[in-house]
């Protein structure tokens, strides 16, 4: 009897886990299914009359505005990622590698944006852009805002990586005649790189998926999430589902590829 009980409790966690994963995928499945919906006016309900269609997949830019919004999102994401990764990585290096006055205030300043709700970030940025800096809302205000909230996540990610590095490796390099510049280029940077790449990917996905802050500071600029949100009342074109699901596929394939390459690199015994 204790055997059956232990079987159940051993597998209980796994059973719940699988159920949770199904739950996590349910909306993705819906998004996927509705990308084949042969709907007339609104893609909210399944049209039982039309048979499933591939036409949205064949013509993903078919709905007006969807592809321009996607392009804007990619441009914003790329720019924000580039700048935030550089700025955040520099901060992370300073925090991990140096002892200086003001270090704990820096830590607080980096932590605060993560502890601030997005509406507050959006509202304050909108206020400063309009009342303070008198900037026109649009592409650049969105980029500025995205860089701001990505920096903290970059700092945290890169910092964790740097902290897990053995400082003795750098000492060994300088012991082996590498000057500080070479030590950084040959040892520190290559070893920190996985953390920096992870930070960049994180930044991109945060920026790409952001809606709340973007909605505050974008003016007439339309990003992909904003496009979806705005067209919700009028009916979202199935092309949005096609694009949304493709992003998911691309991301999953990238992660899997990275995993495979990573485990190859690390070698057998590592």
């Amino acid at each position, binding site marked *: 009897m204790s055997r059956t009980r232990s079987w159940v409790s051993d597998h209980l966690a796994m059973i719940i886990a699988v159920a949770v994963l199904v739950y996590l995928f349910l909306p993705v499945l819906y998004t996927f299914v509705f990308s084949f919906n042969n709907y007339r006016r609104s893609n909210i309900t399944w049209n039982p009359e039309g048979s499933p269609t591939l036409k949205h997949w064949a013509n993903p830019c078919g709905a007006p505005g969807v592809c321009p919004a996607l392009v804007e999102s990619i441009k914003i994401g790329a720019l924000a990622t580039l700048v935030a990764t550089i700025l955040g990585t520099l901060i992370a290096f300073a925090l991990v590698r140096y002892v200086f006055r003001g270090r704990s205030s820096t830590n607080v300043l980096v932590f605060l944006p993560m502890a601030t709700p997005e509406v507050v970030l959006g509202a304050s940025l909108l206020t400063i852009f309009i009342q303070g800096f008198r900037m026109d809302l649009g592409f650049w205000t969105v980029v500025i805002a995205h860089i701001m909230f990505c920096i903290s996540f970059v700092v945290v990610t890169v910092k964790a990586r740097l902290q897990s590095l053995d400082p003795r*490796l750098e000492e*060994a*390099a300088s012991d*082996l*005649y590498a*000057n500080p510049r070479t030590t950084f280029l040959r040892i520190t940077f290559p070893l920190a790189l996985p953390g920096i790449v992870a930070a960049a990917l994180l930044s991109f996905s945060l920026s790409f998926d952001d809606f709340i802050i973007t909605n505050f500071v974008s003016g007439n600029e339309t990003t992909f999430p904003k496009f979806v949100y705005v067209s919700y009342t009028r009916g979202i074109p199935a092309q949005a589902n096609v694009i949304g699901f493709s992003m998911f596929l691309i991301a999953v394939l990238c992660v899997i590829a990275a995993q495979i390459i990573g485990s190859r690199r*690390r070698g057998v015994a590592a």
Partner: protein
Amino acid sequence: MATNTREAHGDLVLENVTKEFADFTAVDDLSLVVPRGSFFALLGPSGCGKTTTLRMVAGLEQPTGGRVLIGETDITGTRPHERPVNTVFQSYALFPHLTVRENVAFGPKRRKAADAMRLADDALELVQLSHLAARKPGQLSGGQQQRVALARAVVNQPEVLLLDEPLGALDLKLRRQMQVELKRIQSEVGLTFIHVTHDQEEAMTMADTVAVMNRGRIEQMGPPERLYDLPQTAFVANFVGQSNLGVGRIHGTDGDFIVAEVSDTKVRIPKQRSEIHDGQVMFGVRPEKVRIHESQPVGTGNDVRAVVTDVSFTGVATQYLVTVPSGANWTVYEQNLDVEPISLRPGDDVWLSWDPTHAFGVPVDEDGRKAALAEDGA
């Protein structure tokens, strides 16, 4: 400037080197000379400042006082990469993203050696790892990693090679093997080796000179035989081998001997073998120099009553633990030269004697006082 110091050669000299951390003096006014090409061992208990000393020689730590020189060149204040010194780190510190060969070639490349890869291959041959050159460090066993670390340092033919407990992580067999290997490499390449260890046997068997460190200071330095035969402090007497100690007061002299009274017994110490010539002295004699007798021996003039507390037979020798009148526990090694069976049992009264020319006298300090009382040989 950089190339200048990097080409320095000669003996390694530390002059009054001190290292203070915020609230702690890790190395305290340490001076020593390591002759070029010698194998020097730094021996001492954990936390006594061995690693800190090495780091100051390597340039990874700057002394708060004193100077470090190689030959005539003062290298104090120069950066690690400007010194002709390489380190085999306590934890290897191999670069995980480079192959074994690239790890070894790292130093030669930085020095712009034209044939860095060939040098690396030669060094790998020296440590018998040529067949693993293409692997990453993560794919090696602990002993193999250690040998890569060694090759990576030796390949540079530095003036001084620092080894920080390079054999610490190895099992006994591999350890012995690597000791022989290290010694071979040192005599082949003729570099100055500074080898840190807290294994006294390792230090004794490998080094030309051994320095015993304690609490940031060097207690004694010299050839291993001398360190063993004539310790200059109670700490050394106990850290290098074992000693039977007793605290006494000097009463006078008798020819070439000092006469001291240790718990109502008069003992003699050769004048040249005592650091102290009047007042309190700590008397010592090595366990294998002591004879054990069932009745008072005649003619030695140097004997003590004792009670046996433990007898253990170890094959070629028998080890006795005895309690002497001062209350200290002494150890006696008796070679099993006679065919007679051992007749002593715990509780038996015995007499101890020794040739007074083997005794030594060191200053009385806290370490020694404790050792004299707690000496148990266990």
